[in-house]
């Protein structure tokens, strides 16, 4: 199996892992971490497509590579905004979850 196919499988695996974390963690900061893992898996898919498109003396197709650079910067901007919202939510309510009332009662644990 070629190196890029191997990293493609890694991308597929971390997309599943990130999705699982996003769905099962009620803690918003954990959701944000899982979301970043998920997006890194999507970026790896772009990396595999870029590597497969190696031609004209280049190691990879520069167009998907440039798209991933843009995506990483935009993902950072989204994460920064989500963290600002989250810390503001915490300052106002003392809670860092978007869960419903049944999960909010976990405070007595």
């Amino acid at each position, binding site marked *: 199996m070629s190196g890029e196919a191997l990293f493609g499988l890694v991308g597929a695996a971390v997309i*599943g892992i990130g999705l699982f974390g996003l769905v*099962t963690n009620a803690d918003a900061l*954990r959701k944000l971490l899982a979301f970043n893992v998920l997006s890194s898996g999507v970026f790896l898919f772009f990396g*595999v497509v870029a590597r*497969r498109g190696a031609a*004209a003396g280049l190691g990879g197709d520069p167009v998907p*590579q440039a798209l991933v650079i843009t995506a990483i*910067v935009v993902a*950072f901007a989204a994460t920064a905004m989500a963290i600002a919202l989250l810390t503001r939510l915490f300052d106002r309510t003392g809670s860092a979850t978007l869960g419903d009332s049944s999960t909010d009662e976990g405070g007595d644990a």
Partner: protein
Amino acid sequence: MMSFTFDTAAALLIVAMGGWIVIVPDVTRAVIGFIVYGLMLTIVWVRLSAVDVALTEAAIGGGLTGMLLINAAGRLRSARPVLRTDAPVRFIAALLCAAVSVSLAAVIFMLPSPAPSLAPLAVENLQQTGLGNPVAAVLFAYRALDTLLEKVVLLLALLSVWSLATVGFWPGLPGLRPPALAGSTLDFLARHLPPYGIIFGVYMCWNGASEPGGAFQGGTVIAAMWLLVMIAGMRRVPSIDEAWLRRSLVAGPAIFVVIGFAGMMVAGSFLAYPPDHAKLLIVVIEVALTLSIAAVLGLLAAGPPVPESRP
């Protein structure tokens, strides 16, 4: 064979780190895991011959995002604990997520062969841009509109963060407060690292035209140095309405737009460059963008304005 062993080890480590980030109970450990995960991904990007992406991932994906997340994990330490999802729900979620992964893995083996590629076109027209780095040519010539809009997205994100300012503290100082640890490692690093960091950032920006690197990566390194001296308390955190700050934020996108409109008159379309001066114009845009990116990333990481009294 050697490289395959290395790739397999890196692949297993990344999947294991991904799992650790999602399941480890302590959120601070998960964040530290995420930073290591970002560095492992950087190695994979180098293995995929995407050095520009590797530099971006190291600087932003692991570095700056990691700093934001660690800061947030510390702030939220006293948050009420959250109940975990019930075991049956977790089991069903795991099955469905595994199905998504398996389908995506199958897609990897069904990609068209020979792979479609824009690399020959990118190289063919490289001469006209005067650049040596095809990724920089995509970012600043072939798909310049994407890059311009991405800068606008960064400014919009910063506006959104600022709009979360506490009532009555606009304009104010971003919520980055120095822990005041004189004589600490932080103090030492903040005194000695920035001169090298700034030179390295400028070098990455300058070199980006012909080699991997560029405005994003250089700007991020400069932003990191700025944050370092602010966190160590050696430079005051600026108020968000200071004129020099506002000007640095918009300088890059503004020059980009002006050159873009000039292209309509001189070269026939928006963001087109006259072939004789393409490289000069792109370098001017890159230098202005490096300044703006450093300012916007630093301020995004510093957070919204907050009341003075809070620790």
